[in-house]
């Protein structure tokens, strides 16, 4: 089993619902975003860089098979699960940020200050907080917690805390365009493997040799 994701750029409407769902479900402190959606070629989101040319590109951790972030981590805080998911153990991380220098996709985020303090700067009414309230341990390792420690790294955890309950990641469930699909990339008959085959799935920065488990399907035309 190699858990992978396919994102159909034809179906992505650039609404950033996945970004919001991800931020809220995973209690990301102010300033940190595990997931982002951009309009390639344009300075502004949702603005065509050229007349008639516009598509949207969601980016988060690519759960690389040859993950440089994992290889550089001096304490094995960043590690790969059996299903290929790359995780960060919040209790283990020493905060050296080597992994952030190593990741070519810029998806890793650091807790530069106490996350509670950071989020207080939002000034939400009545101290409103968000996020899945329970911490989650996978084989004893703390891979999700609603309030992070100061000075540790975080990034997309493929919603392991939901996968454990048989649920798809928050971004998949929250996508109104149904652009996101999760499945087994090792199984040639799985829906995701078929999508990659039939629709010319590609990965980002193949030249870096990271071998991502996140694939993209190219868009055919401009979404209007």
């Amino acid at each position, binding site marked *: 089993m190699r858990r992978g994701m396919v994102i159909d750029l034809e179906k992505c409407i650039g609404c950033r619902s996945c970004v919001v769902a991800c931020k809220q479900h995973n209690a990301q402190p*102010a*300033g*940190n*975003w595990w997931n*982002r959606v*951009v309009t*390639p*070629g*344009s300075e502004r989101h949702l603005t065509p*860089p*050229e007349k008639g*040319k516009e*598509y949207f*590109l969601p*980016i988060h951790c690519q759960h690389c098979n040859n993950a*440089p972030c994992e*290889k*550089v*981590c*001096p*304490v*094995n*805080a960043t590690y790969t699960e059996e299903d290929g998911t790359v995780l960060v153990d919040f209790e*283990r*991380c*020493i*905060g*050296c*940020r*080597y992994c*952030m*220098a*190593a*990741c*070519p*996709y*810029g998806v*890793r*985020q*650091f*807790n*530069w*200050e*106490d996350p509670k303090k*950071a989020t207080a*700067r*939002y000034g939400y009414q009545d101290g409103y907080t968000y996020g899945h309230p329970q911490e989650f341990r996978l084989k004893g390792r703390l891979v999700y917690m609603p309030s992070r*420690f*100061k*000075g*540790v*790294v975080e990034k997309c955890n493929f919603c392991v805390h939901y996968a454990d309950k048989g649920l798809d990641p928050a971004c998949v469930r929250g996508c109104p365009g149904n652009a996101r699909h999760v499945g087994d990339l090792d199984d040639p008959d799985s829906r995701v493997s078929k999508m990659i085959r039939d629709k010319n799935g590609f990965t*980002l*920065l193949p030249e*870096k*040799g*990271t071998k991502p488990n996140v694939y993209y399907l*190219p*868009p055919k035309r401009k979404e209007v």
Partner: protein
Amino acid sequence: MSTSKKIGFAITGLLMLAGLVAWGIQVKEGLVLTNMRNSYTWGLYVAGLAFFVGNAAGGLVLSSMIYLFGVTSLKPFAKIGALCAFANVTAAMLAILPDIGQPIRLYNLVLHPQWRSPLVWDIIVLNLYAALSLLYLYLLMLPDFQGPLKKIALKVDHPKEFSEKWAKRLAPYSLAAAVGIHVITAWIFATQGARDWWNSAVLAPDFVAAALASGTAIVLLVCLLTYGLKDEYTQAYRTMAIFIAVALFTHIFFMYNDFFIHYWYGATEALDVLSITFKKYALAHAFEVVAPLAGVILLLSSNVRKSAGAMMTSCFLIIAGIFVHRFLLMPGAFDRVPLTIAPLGMQNTEFSVPIASGQYEPLMNTFVTEWHYFPSGIEIAIFLGVLAYVGFLIILAIDRLPIVKIEKAQT
């Protein structure tokens, strides 16, 4: 104790204290007090690691020159060499400490080391090198321990011969360790395919070359400060000057060789990276080349070598130039977001995918493609504290230990 030593202790002591206080504040508030952010994750602290590791080269290179290659004129300076090596390699570890977000968890390095990480290898070789240079210093001082220091002296029949014999035996290992710390520190950067600026096979050899220049310049500087100019040292100073010059020319050759190859091929990514150093940091780059070059050209002139002041200025230029060189490791790697894509269906367009900055500020962009980094006051205070530690340790050791004693008795 002389007044100049007292002033030295006072200045370095105060700077160390200030650095310690700054680190305390940073531990409490978090690395938000630095000017690094998600898109610019390493700065002055890591540049400091590279700088001090490089400076540590001189010491054991000196001892290996004496004991492996028979350059006996350098013998009076062997102890200063080992001392500078120890001071700088421990400073390298101190410089990287404040970069750690959770310093309390450092025990994880012992409990759960991850053997594929170049950082783990580096920590091991740096500690080995520190131990080795301390051992070297001890061996070299062995024949000269007097008074209360006699208590720590190893009881051997012929301390002089013993010291000589073991210094010789250890020399090959110290040379290997000296090369090792630079190569492995360079691998921390050079292995990173995500950063085109670092990902080069020449980085490690270049690191060694730059280290030999700045490391030897530091030893020369300390020798000049303690022994001054004397006829009997002319030959030794000349040898060091030539050695520094050869190392520096090699470093500049390695550096420009790399630039040239990338420039000639002209890939957009490579040109973008080069333009950071050559345009955005043009002045700093000019300094990193011109200052040390001027320094070695001066040192090579026998007239300049008649003035201790001029020689010290030259050493200072070399060390400052290499410091700027180490600092410039960062902009080339972090000023440009590594994830740049060619948007589908568009010609000749390159698009940098913005990164979340990591800090919420009402007036600041949430996602950034550029981050202007200059170290914050806290970072500078901590760095100066580490620099002061090097000075403090060297003055203290020279004051308390038989490092320059015998020569003093002669004058």
